[in-house]
């Protein structure tokens, strides 16, 4: 059994938006008890992250450290824009999808673990896909 759903979202600049509730809803809708759920963004300047968040400070730190590690510089070979060039690298390094185990019809996760859509070159209109497989 497979269920794939697409969601649309308008992101902010350098934002992390929690999409856990949409993932949980999709699992519930699929009726799958045990299996895998994959969340993916079909974009090259955004990503999906699994973050154990103890509050906004954690997500703010992640955004800030990403900017420090991969700053918007003017000397990337990719010349679209400094933000865009850095965004491609962030997207590649940090990934555009996450997979989690579905057990007893629920996400197998720590209580404070959430799934986030990471925007590296926003605001933009984005799509993300949730695919649940199992039985």
């Amino acid at each position, binding site marked *: 059994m497979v269920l794939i759903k697409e969601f649309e979202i*308008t992101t902010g*600049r350098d934002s992390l938006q929690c999409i856990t509730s949409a993932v949980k809803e999709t699992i519930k809708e699929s009726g799958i008890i045990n299996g895998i759920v994959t969340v993916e963004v079909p974009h090259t300047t955004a990503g999906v992250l699994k973050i154990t968040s103890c509050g906004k400070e954690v997500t703010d730190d992640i955004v800030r450290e990403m900017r420090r590690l991969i700053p*918007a510089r*003017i*000397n*990337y070979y990719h*010349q*679209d*824009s*400094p*933000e865009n060039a850095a965004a491609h690298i962030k997207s590649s390094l940090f990934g555009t999808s996450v997979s989690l185990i579905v057990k007893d019809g629920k996400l197998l996760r720590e209580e404070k673990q959430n799934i986030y859509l990471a925007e590296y*070159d*926003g*605001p*933009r*209109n984005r799509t993300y896909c949730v695919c649940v497989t199992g039985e």
Partner: protein
Amino acid sequence: MNRNEFENSLLRQARRLQEYVDIVYKNVLPQADRLPVKEIWDAQKIFISGCGDSWMAGIAAKPAFESITGIETNVIRAIELSRILSKKNLGYSPNTPLVILISYSGTAARVVECAKRCSKYGANTIAITNNPESPLAENCRYCIDVGLPADGEYQPGATTYNASMLALFLIALRIGRVRNTITPLEYDDMHAELLSFVGECQKKNDEFEERAFAIAEKWKDLKAEDFIGDYGDYATAFFGSAKVIECFGGYTTYDDSEDWCHINYFLVEPEKIGRVVIANKSTPSFGRLLETIEAIRKIESPCIIVTDTDKNEFPESMEVFTIPSPKYFWMAPLTEHIPFDMVAGYIAALKGIPSFRADDERYSSEISTQRLKSGTEIVII
């Protein structure tokens, strides 16, 4: 009289501007997007220059540059940039200006001179031209070829004016994108609006032409035309005034609303002077423009108003052309000139006067071509 019996190049251009928006947009976008990030990032100041319609396109695009990029933008006369402006303004850091030079032919002598001088002192130079092999293109670091078809009708210029303006807008958007002064969402939305905005106005072609012809019949015997516009709309005023001269050699003047109230208001025989006011509601000086229009009503000048707002805002006695309101105010100059292009085209056709006095050999002397040749042998100071 039947208006279908009267034709003019400016009329034909005014009807087809959207077609050329599509062509120029398609040609310029990939070139603008190749402008290097470093040069854009370095720019502390922007200079735009050109002669005639090209200079006006710069004035028209100044609000776009300031609104989109946040960079101080100076639209400077070619003679000033080539001969007068201190060279310290043109060098590398801390000034590092981006200089955009416009010439359809790429041969305008003073503009080529600007390119040579600005390049010599270290400024980053971009040519906007229809001739990538021209002296202007060769003397600028980067060239944006607007790519107008060779068989087009471009004199008096309306198509080329819009082409230059559109190229400038696309450069401004490129700068805004690179410097992150506009968001990707705004960037995409502005591009979409640029592609459709002129077309929205062109839906009114038939209505505008019908009224333009009726006005031309009344205005053809006036003594002069006087144009009023503020900020970016000052370009439309200047442009309209230029078309009066180019199309039928009429007497004309132009000014912004504030100075008009100080100077042109006092011209004698106001009932024999046609006034054209660009009065968009989005213009910060709209209140002053309304006062100006009231002054025009009192002195009983025939008046055309080009606006993005309802005609009920203005005196009943005036001819109001309502153009579609752009989502971004800085796009307005792309269409504001269309109503008077049509009026000027019909006046010229009704009077039977050819553009640029082509039937009078006194106007075909070297004086008229000197603008392209004069002073190419220069010593850069």
